[in-house]
């Protein structure tokens, strides 16, 4: 696993290729955005501008439910929760929108046997290798897009990847599952939602050879109950070297965090917070640090965080 920024962000005119209703209230659009598709890592996000006018004013952040560099396609999946997502549900193929990305720290995948330090120039500190940061501003200013200093830890090799998802939190984990499988990782996906109606389609992950287990609150698909209960059984058997990544509602993340902490499994969580710019300019998307005073910012320090670094609020089950 390699976790860090991929290097660039671009403001790209993305064209809607298709839009389709999924299960329940979910909608998925495929966008042609070749530059972003070629740069994005799983778990990075984009900021979508919904029009050229002043209302709605802000861009909307979305994780990528599909990243296909060779076809230049990215996927965005959402449920209608407000004005912005409602407008997006009226998108039509051929329409173009400004999409800024890829943003934030993503998770890159190395094959389990690869040496994390063989990629690029990195300085090794203990278990982690850190990319050198070249912050010479002379080569940093350019026209439309700029290099982002590669940052953050590149994790050393791992064994088994556990993915825990709730609701639409599944979407950004799908490219990670795909990439991990393609590099020969063993992947278990635990996915829960209120009912079968609200489960996103995860047949793609199954087809790639992920071990997919479902849970619904009402038992209409998979086992009845919480996805965290489902995941706990498997995580009991995890090795110390295994890695878990979770994305979903805060209560779910809190339970997964306490579970992994008890079992000694390293957990990364993908967080959401109200966001204005997505690029680190406004300092709006604050999330409390776990061990010290102050805040991280979801857009530049995240959206994926090592669970023990962040305060997820009310951390008891």
């Amino acid at each position: 696993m390699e976790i860090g920024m991929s290097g660039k962000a671009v403001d790209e005119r993305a064209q809607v290729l298709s839009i389709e209703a999924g299960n329940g209230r979910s909608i998925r659009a495929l966008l042609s955005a070749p530059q972003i598709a070629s740069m994005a890592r799983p778990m990075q996000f984009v900021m979508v501008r919904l029009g050229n006018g002043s209302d709605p004013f802000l861009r909307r952040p979305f994780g990528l439910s599909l990243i296909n560099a060779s076809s230049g396609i990215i996927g965005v999946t959402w449920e209608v929760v407000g004005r912005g997502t409602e407008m997006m549900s009226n998108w039509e193929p051929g329409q173009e929108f400004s999409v800024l990305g890829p943003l934030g720290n993503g998770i890159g995948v190395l094959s389990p046997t690869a040496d994390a330090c063989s990629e690029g120039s990195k300085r090794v500190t203990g278990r982690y290798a850190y990319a050198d940061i070249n912050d010479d501003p002379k080569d940093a200013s350019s026209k439309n897009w700029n290099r982002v200093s590669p940052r953050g830890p590149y994790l050393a090799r791992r064994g088994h990847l556990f993915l825990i998802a709730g609701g639409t939190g599944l979407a950004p984990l799908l490219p990670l599952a795909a990439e991990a499988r393609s590099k020969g990782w063993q992947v278990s996906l635990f996915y829960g939602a209120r009912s079968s109606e609200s489960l996103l389609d995860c047949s793609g992950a199954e087809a790639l050879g992920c071990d997919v287990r479902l849970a619904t609150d009402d038992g209409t698909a998979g086992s009845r109950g919480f996805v965290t209960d489902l995941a706990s059984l498997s995580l009991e058997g995890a090795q110390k070297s295994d890695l878990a990544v979770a994305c979903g509602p805060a209560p779910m993340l809190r339970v997964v965090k306490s579970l992994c902490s008890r079992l000694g499994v390293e957990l990364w969580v993908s967080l959401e917070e109200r966001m204005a710019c997505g690029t680190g300019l406004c300092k709006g998307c604050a999330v409390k640090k776990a061990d010290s005073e102050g805040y991280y910012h979801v857009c530049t320090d995240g959206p994926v965080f090592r669970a023990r670094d962040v305060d997820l609020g009310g951390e008891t089950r």
Partner: protein
Amino acid sequence: MSAERPVRSDGGVSMNHPDLSLSFAGIKMKNPLVAASGVFGYGEEYVNVGDITAFGAVTVKGTTLHPRVGNCPPRVCETPSGMLNSIGLENPGAEIVAREKIPWLRNFGVPIIVNISGDTYDEFSALGAIFAGAEGVDALEVNVSCPNVAAGGMAFGIDPRSCYRAARAVSREWSGPLIVKLTPNAPDIVGTARAAVEGGATAISLINTLVGVAIDIKSRRPVLGNVTGGLCGPAIKPVAIRCVYQVSQAVDVPIIGMGGVTCHRDVVEFMMAGANAVAMGSGLLVDPASPSRIVQGLERYCREEGVANPQELVGAAWR
């Protein structure tokens, strides 16, 4: 519009090649577009998404004497044609800004305005002294209007007397260009502007945000962790234009106008209201690469309208 502005001695100015430059309170700016405080950080994030050198000047994030971690989230909330924010002046403190942030930003060769915010007059003086002793600061902008920190700037900017004292506290220590940033929440913004100038302000910037609240109808609670936030964006532009229009006619110092600027037409409108320079705030959050386009748009406008330098437009709408 007057055509009497002296043409630069290098003869490079003509209607086909408008000169966008200006001298603002002694600061040489190549164009009148400024990055407003709070949407530009210290430039470190902006370099990833935009071109710092597109600006005539940049204003760094509100800086306090001591580091601040900022307010409880949520800190931002979209509103019709705008947004509320209550970041809470998250910043590393004046010493770090003077020692690390400014020298780095200096490399871009764009004039730097440091926005300062204090809880007391003594803090304002201390901030003035720190930046007077630092290299590479072209101007200070005194935040007498930030509505977000409970013990913070609000009171200074509301009342002309405290606005005067805050400006005076800084001007005693800092002899360079001194900008006081006014709040539209003041009952008499012209009175506070005059008081700021008496206190030593050599320029005025306006407007800061308007205080607002948004409520989440599901949780039945205010959206922002701090309950109130500052409203900015195109929604406040007419208020900002009104304030610039009134203040610029009442004082003899140059003006930076701001509030909802997203395109070159907004820049022109602010200048006609009486602003010499125009800052971009939340518009930069939405479209961080837009400044170079806005400057090009301004240049095109000048060419089409036969304007040799947009300073000719300043106060064109006064009556």
